[in-house]
């Protein structure tokens, strides 16, 4: 049962990461940069770095999750990324700023719906990371 759950979680999360990367990479990078800049958290040079690098990082994470390679590292990195993004989304929503999420391309405003979606992804990622870590510790416990 746990094996099937883990397979489902890594395929689902991997597909979401690949899709998120695709929505950003298919458009000029400046569109994602504008979405990142709207949060008002980073200077312009850092906005450029994030806008150019994050979609490729998402693609890499997605492919690693789907393939199952480096699953512990990939699931922990995905959890850290989703935790950071979720914290920024909650902070922005709570402060009443009405901007686009930027998570899946244009037309995706920050709302309760986007918070619920990203929160669910974070939860799934944490469960997957927990399962991956638990699997690693089990042989050591037996020995």
């Amino acid at each position: 049962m746990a094996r099937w759950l883990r397979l489902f979680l890594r395929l689902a999360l991997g597909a979401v990461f690949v899709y998120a990367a695709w929505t950003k990479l298919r458009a000029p990078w400046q569109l994602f940069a504008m979405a990142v800049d709207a949060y008002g958290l980073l200077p312009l040079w850092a906005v450029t770095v994030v806008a150019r690098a994050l979609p490729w990082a998402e693609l890499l994470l997605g492919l690693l999750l789907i393939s199952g390679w480096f699953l512990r590292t990939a699931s922990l990195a995905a959890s850290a990324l989703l935790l950071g993004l979720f914290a920024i989304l909650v902070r922005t929503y709570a402060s009443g700023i009405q901007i686009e999420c930027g998570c899946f391309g244009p037309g995706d405003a920050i709302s309760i719906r986007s918070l619920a979606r990203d929160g669910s992804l974070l939860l799934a990622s944490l469960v997957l990371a927990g399962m991956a870590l638990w699997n690693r510790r089990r042989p050591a416990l037996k020995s």
Partner: protein
Amino acid sequence: MRPVSFLLLGGLLAWAANPSQPGLKAVGSPSAPITIEVFSDFECPHCKTLHDETLPPLIRDYVAPGKVYLIYREFPLPGHPYALVAASYATAAAHLGKYNEVADRLWLHQTTWSQNGKVEETACRGLTPTETAKVIKLAKEPAIAAEIQRDVALGQKLELHQTPTMIVRRGTAVYPLAGMINYDLLRSFLDSLR
């Protein structure tokens, strides 16, 4: 009489084919390779920032050299009590070729009229008495309200959910840019489209 009738009919058909009359509220050459439609609400502070900070360099660097055709669209939000009135005066002024003049004044004094509600006074300041009378009369006509409604309907069709939003078109590609946009990023984006 017949040629005159044909001319009148032709004019009506041309108007019907292009109901929102972008030429009245537009800057630049319609044959420019890139078209930008700016959906704004006169009472929205972020729209004022966009008009004060982003549009002037955009007009200088891209519209004036014929690279971008800029169209202003009205998108008054329900939560702003004077936004629709302001849009009516600006749209009425467009029919006298005074859109930019009136719109600039509305943006400049936004914080004042959005507090005291004296939209007409702000919009018509600087116009001649004849122009003022025409703008006031036009602003109350159903045709002006219908023109604004067409802009709103277009925005809804494009699934706008905030103002300001710029719709950038290059050929068949359409890119919605929502919110305040950093001009350096906008410039980089427009250069990438050429």
